């Protein structure tokens, strides 16, 4: 009798487990589908908007570029500089074991341009703009501003999403390039002091080492990061339910998902392109 009951309990527990796994798998697929639909919708409105007399406003794109890009310059510069110096410190410490400190420039150049520049910029933009997008759209949704747009015959994707997406697409690679330059320069200052190398020699070595492919590797990643940040921020905003608490949750979720997506994409990109 006891064994039959134990069996029943085990069966129920495993059924519940598989039920939960199944539900989360379906949920994840649904979410991926939503991102796909949102991207498709954005491209549709960008291309077809003028035909439907609903063009994407250039002023809105500039306004997003200002918010996403220009206002992020100080923090991206500061963080990229810090990372550059940190790379120089760690690189010199590691290479000293082999007595090859002078080769640190290679490590700094590749790491900064191929990896840290795009990643740090992506994470900062995700923290600043991904969360801001989610909070802005979430607040608009709960205060019925999105409904108001729809009733006025203004498509919310065209009016709110496409400018943010374009703003990200233009400004994230631009910020990445800026971060690369600042990071390399800051590392050069440290290397110059630590190894007694002139800045001119450091710049010469860096230019010799880096190819256009290296630069494009980093900038290519930043384009993917830009799409991810915009879509995750926007979709989390649109999915807000339940007032102010919902907005808070969506904002947190957007940042966590953005950063996770960037890191995983970064790894996959490196795996596919670098080997």
């Amino acid at each position, binding site marked *: 009798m006891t064994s039959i009951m134990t069996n029943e309990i085990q069966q129920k527990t495993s059924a519940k487990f598989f039920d939960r796994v199944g539900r989360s798998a379906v949920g994840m697929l649904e979410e991926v589908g939503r991102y796909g639909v949102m991207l498709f919708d954005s491209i549709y409105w960008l291309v077809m908007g003028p035909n439907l007399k609903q063009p994407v406003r250039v002023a809105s794109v500039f306004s997003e570029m200002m918010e996403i890009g220009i206002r992020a310059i100080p923090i991206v510069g500061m963080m990229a500089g810090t990372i550059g110096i940190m790379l120089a410190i760690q690189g010199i410490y590691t290479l000293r074991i082999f007595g090859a400190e002078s080769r640190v420039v290679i490590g700094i150049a590749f790491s900064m341009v191929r990896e840290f520049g795009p990643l740090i910029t992506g994470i900062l933009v995700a923290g600043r703009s991904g969360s801001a997008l989610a909070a802005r759209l979430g607040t608009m949704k709960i205060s019925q501003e999105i409904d108001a747009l729809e009733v006025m*015959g*203004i498509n919310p994707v065209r009016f709110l999403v496409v400018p943010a997406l374009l703003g990200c697409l233009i400004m994230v690679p631009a910020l990445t390039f800026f971060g690369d330059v600042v990071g390399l320069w800051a590392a050069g200052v440290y290397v110059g002091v630590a190894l007694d190398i002139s800045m001119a020699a450091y710049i010469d070595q860096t230019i010799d080492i880096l190819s256009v492919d290296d630069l494009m590797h980093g900038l290519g990643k930043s384009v993917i990061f830009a799409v991810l940040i915009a879509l995750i921020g926007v979709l989390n905003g649109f999915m807000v339910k339940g007032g102010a608490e919902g907005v808070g949750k969506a904002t947190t979720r957007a940042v966590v998902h953005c950063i996770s997506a960037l890191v995983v994409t970064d790894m996959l990109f490196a795996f596919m392109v670098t080997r």
Partner: protein
Amino acid sequence: MQMAATKQKNENAPAITPGNVIEVRNLVTYYGTRRILNDVSLDIREGEIMVIMGGSGSGKSTLLRYLMALEKQTSGTINILGHDIGTISKKDFFNMRKKLGVAFQGGALFSSMTVGENIMLPLYEHTKLDRKTMEIMARMKLEVVSLAGFENLMPSELSGGMIKRAAVARAIVMDPKILFFDEPSAGLDPVVSSALDDLILTLREAMGMTIVVVTHELESAFKIADRITMLDRGDILFQGTVEEIRSHPSERIQNLLNRRSEDQTIDPDEYMKRLTGEDVKGRLA
């Protein structure tokens, strides 16, 4: 050739009864698995003020969302200004929307724009008017709602009543054929609420719009309505004029009008199940 032209004409002809601007037939809606509207059919006539009333949870806000074409029905048909919402093309849908105006419960003004910019937004998006003309039109509409001179303020600088009036100014800026009000009196003191009722009547007189108001305020409904639709638990209890509803013999309607709660007989077994949560488990199983 002539037959083809006639067929084309027939297809384009509005499938709506002349004199009606909105027709709803057999609308059934769900929120998840919960049924919200049960087979609702409704006509809204051109130029009338139709008030949709009902208590909390009666389905009136849901019905309004369908009337404003914010939701697409999966069951039944909705025809707005001659367009069947189920089959309308994207282009016609956007053109139709330009003929609708909505004053939302909380105003739904864009917080990042000034009052004037909020009102000019539909003009900016749908017309080729120059900025100066748009500003003049915005001021005209603000004048109509007694908010002249407030165009440069941000929505956060306005009171509740002013926000609602600014929302009305934005809703009427494109001279819509149908104007919707969602709970216009909610959160307002009786004086401001009465002024808003007067504004609704003035708008109908001055602009000849069809106005649909969703409210649970009886006084306001009796003051402005040409016809009233009363909803209760997803069903239409009554449709008719103010006089007809006042003299209606139904006890349920009179209870709602006189704010009397209905006597509910409690089944002890059902009550016990609700307390122990067994009814929920049963529904989920």
